[in-house]
């Protein structure tokens, strides 16, 4: 705590200084950078100009430090560098690089500042600058919160431009031709007489040249790549089965392992009997780890089989054993004592509620597992001198600290080889599996151990999305929404997640309320209060974090009021919207879907709007009430990210986000019984499969003033849009996810 406070004070000073000095937020500060990590281990003949570009006599390597869990950021980062470096896809290699504070995330502050994303006033921007300074001082490298694009957008183009200009300077010194007469394209400098010098030929000369640090970025009209369809760099390997993920990594002399720890998460292991397991084929060793046991074997399947044969005596869970008690805890948390923050208080809610006939409703959002397709896995090798880790992870510094904490090395002695990730949705922010893998490796010193979770272990030990409960009261008058009083109670996901990393962040948890108060509507009387329930089951960030719950509550209730007022759900949302960029998003989705057109009597449409991660997103869902249940026919999504980097990948991510939001709202939850998750494999949490997938139409707008990421924002509006559509088709209002508790789906 003391440490954080010291940093905060320093950060504030630095932050104020930056504001005074007019240094733009998010711009890589050339004059005060962290040392370039590539410069530390430069091999003979290599040259580097900044932490993202490395050139030798044979090849150009671009460092793309953001973790790629399917969102395509390796390709996106390379494209931003290549745009200014004047090099084409196919002419360079990429690497995730080594962890370094030089890769601190310049965009994380935006989401952390307690202001509406649509608020770009001086106070809000100043707060963001101060927080960004703290992130920088801590050297926080990380991927998450839909920040990869906003973090990279300016600084990677600058990195490419600086490298290009330095290469030109080297070419000029080499040939005597002035820089102004040189041009660049296709990974080479061109001389006026037609001669060409490849960047690789210039590496040697450039290492002696003074680096060019001041460059102007090209105008969008000059872009070759940004905004145009690209073929993602990983698409070929991912269509050929040759893309290697962490689970496919192989290290000489490697053995295989799996773990079983108390399915009552955080509960103790009282005892175990591994006699039968020890004698099973392929088993090399059975070793204890925190709250569980690991089987080391010659093959993953042998390890799985032996782990199944161990008898365990598990201790109780450190949280209520039954799901009902979790809900009761939330229900009891709507009191002043638990008030976490009063996020919004427009007009006079009390007075407005007294005027009309109040409408009230209660909503629930369940625990939900991340369950990406690639189960958790890591290879760890421990020697006296160092630890090596091969896995896919979003937070390199968290990983280094977690592993070093087990092995007794310094975090800097933990060498992390990041890998492509087979989906995360927040799963790979967590470090518990790394601690376990390190605990096994310590007991197998010198031997690389590949630890792989079984799918069942992955479900049992997923730190799911937090549960939350919403209570809303409102009034309507004269065909309009007049007042909304929304209260949400939830355990703090930030507290739970940061707590596992040994941190206790001060202040309210924005994720209890995210997706509700921040929607830029001008409801005349609007109050939103968030209550922090006591910790329950350990929880974690799940794609879009608080917004899928709080956004569902807010938008569903708004829809209830609009129907009570007798207004049109689209028209009333547009009327209430006070933010231009957001209003255009609603208008776009209305136009795309031909809102208001004819529907069959058993059909219905719902619209929802949620702003999350700075991206106003509106979705329309169309359903048919068939004799086999609800069928989702078509979905339209409009959103605004300021600037689309690659329209193809953008569309894919938006469609995937809608599928993710709809599928989980349909049928996914984690419930606890006897302290254990009741869901053990995909048959308990299917989400959406191919036959249920609707047609999904996407429109990306570019009116917003800041560039934003699209990984998460399409998720939150999906659930309320679906619930609103089911209401329109059937008259049944569903106030609880998953909806399969109340309706059947085709």
């Amino acid at each position, binding site marked *: 705590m003391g440490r954080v406070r010291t940093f905060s004070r320093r950060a504030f000073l630095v932050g104020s200084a930056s504001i005074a000095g007019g240094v733009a937020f998010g711009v890589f500060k050339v004059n005060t950078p962290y040392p370039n990590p590539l410069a530390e281990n430069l091999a003979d003949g290599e040259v580097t100009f900044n932490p993202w570009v490395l050139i030798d006599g044979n090849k150009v390597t671009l460092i793309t430090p953001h973790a790629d*869990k*399917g*969102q395509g950021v390796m390709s996106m980062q390379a494209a931003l560098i290549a745009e200014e470096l004047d090099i084409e896809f196919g002419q360079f290699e990429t690497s995730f690089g080594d962890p370094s504070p030089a890769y601190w995330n310049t965009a994380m502050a935006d989401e952390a500042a307690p202001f509406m994303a649509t608020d770009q006033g001086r106070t809000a921007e100043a707060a963001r600058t101060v927080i960004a300074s703290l992130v920088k001082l801590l050297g926080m490298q990380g991927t998450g919160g839909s920040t990869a694009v906003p973090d990279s957008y300016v600084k990677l183009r600058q990195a490419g431009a600086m490298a290009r200009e330095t290469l030109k300077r080297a070419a000029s010194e080499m040939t005597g031709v002035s820089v102004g007469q040189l041009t660049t394209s296709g990974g080479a400098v061109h001389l006026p007489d037609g001669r060409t010098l490849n960047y690789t030929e210039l590496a040697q000369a450039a290492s002696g040249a003074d680096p060019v640090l001041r460059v102007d970025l090209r105008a969008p009209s000059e872009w070759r790549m940004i905004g145009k369809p690209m*073929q*993602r760099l*990983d*698409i*070929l*390997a*991912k*269509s*050929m*089965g*040759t*893309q*290697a*993920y962490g*689970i*496919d990594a*192989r290290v000489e002399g490697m053995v295989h392992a799996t773990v079983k720890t108390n399915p009552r998460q955080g509960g103790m292991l009282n005892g175990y009997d591994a006699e039968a397991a020890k004698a099973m*084929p392929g088993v090399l060793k059975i070793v204890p780890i925190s709250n569980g046991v690991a089987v080391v074997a010659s*093959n*993953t*399947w*042998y390890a*799985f089989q032996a782990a199944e044969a161990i008898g365990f005596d598990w201790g109780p869970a450190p949280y209520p054993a039954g799901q009902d008690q979790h809900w009761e805890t939330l229900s009891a948390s709507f009191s002043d004592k638990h008030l976490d923050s009063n996020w919004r208080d427009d007009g006079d809610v009390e007075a407005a509620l007294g005027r009309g006939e109040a409408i009230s409703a209660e909503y629930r959002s369940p625990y939900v597992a991340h*369950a*990406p*397709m*690639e*189960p958790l896995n890591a290879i760890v090798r421990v020697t006296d001198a160092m630890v090596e880790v091969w896995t896919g992870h979003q937070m390199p510094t968290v990983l280094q600290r977690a592993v070093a904490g087990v092995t007794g090395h310094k975090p800097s002695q933990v060498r992390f080889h990041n890998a*492509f*990730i*087979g*989906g995360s*949705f927040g799963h790979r922010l967590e470090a518990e599996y790394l601690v376990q893998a390190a605990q096994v490796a310590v007991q197998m010193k010198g031997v690389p151990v590949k630890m*792989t979770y*079984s*799918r069942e272990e992955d479900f049992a030990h997923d730190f799911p999305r937090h549960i939350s409960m919403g209570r809303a009261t409102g009034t309507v008058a004269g065909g309009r929404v007049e007042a909304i009083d929304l209260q949400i109670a939830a355990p703090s996901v930030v507290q739970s997640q940061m707590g596992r990393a040994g941190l206790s962040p001060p202040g309210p948890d924005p994720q209890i309320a995210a997706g509700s108060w921040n929607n830029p509507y001008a409801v005349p009387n609007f109050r939103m209060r968030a209550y922090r329930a006591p910790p329950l089951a350990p929880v974690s960030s799940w794609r879009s974090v608080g917004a899928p719950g709080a956004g569902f509550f807010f938008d569903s209730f708004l829809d209830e009021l609009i129907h009570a007022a007798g207004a049109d759900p689209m028209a009333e949302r547009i009327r209430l919207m006070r933010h231009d960029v957001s209003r255009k998003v609603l208008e776009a989705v209305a136009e795309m879907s031909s809102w208001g057109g004819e529907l069959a009597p058993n059909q219905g449409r719902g619209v929802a709007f949620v702003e999350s991660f700075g991206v106003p997103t509106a979705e329309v869902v169309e359903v048919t009430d068939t004799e086999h249940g609800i069928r989702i026919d078509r979905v339209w999504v409009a959103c605004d990210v300021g600037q689309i980097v690659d329209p*193809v*990948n953008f569309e*894919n991510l938006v*469609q*995937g*986000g809608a*599928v*993710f939001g709809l*599928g989980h709202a349909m049928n996914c939850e984690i419930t606890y019984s006897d302290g254990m998750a009741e869901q053990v*494999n*995909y*048959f308990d949490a*299917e*989400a*959406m*499969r*191919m*036959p249920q*997938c609707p*047609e*999904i139409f996407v429109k990306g707008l570019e009116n917003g003033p800041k560039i934003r990421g699209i990984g998460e924002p399409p998720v939150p509006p999906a659930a309320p849009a679906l619930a609103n559509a089911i209401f329109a088709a059937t008259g049944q209002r569903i106030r609880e996810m998953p909806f399969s508790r109340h309706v059947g789906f085709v």
Partner: protein
Amino acid sequence: MKITVNGNRHELDVSPDMPLLWVLRDELNVTGPKYGCGVAQCGACMVHVDGEAVLSCQMPVGDLEGEVITIEGLGTPEALHVVQQAWVEQQVAQCGYCQSGQIMQAAALLQENPDPSDAEIDEAMSGNLCRCGTYPRIRTAVKTASASMRRA
């Protein structure tokens, strides 16, 4: 025990009840087929055995009869299988972890039925989970592949 994978013969010394998936991945280092669930729920482990789509997590290696083709044996970068070509063209993959299985399933479907209807595509692909939600593109890619197969 001997098995043939992508045209290569291998001599094995493992329990006959070991699923083919783990023989491929851990014993032979053929990692295109993925472990997703182990219980016939996700399709990530799909391979072809004598041309038929088979969930390799459900096939004890001792019961295996016939030649195994994994995604690695389907096409090469120079000569992509028509389904892989369609997958590249439509840029289907996000994380890509499920896509080996999706492609093997789609290839088996088109082998049997080169011109499937939407319902037939949905039905055939219903066992293959994609947590990233690439279903709309998978649907388009199957149709793209089907069209170019019929042209050829």
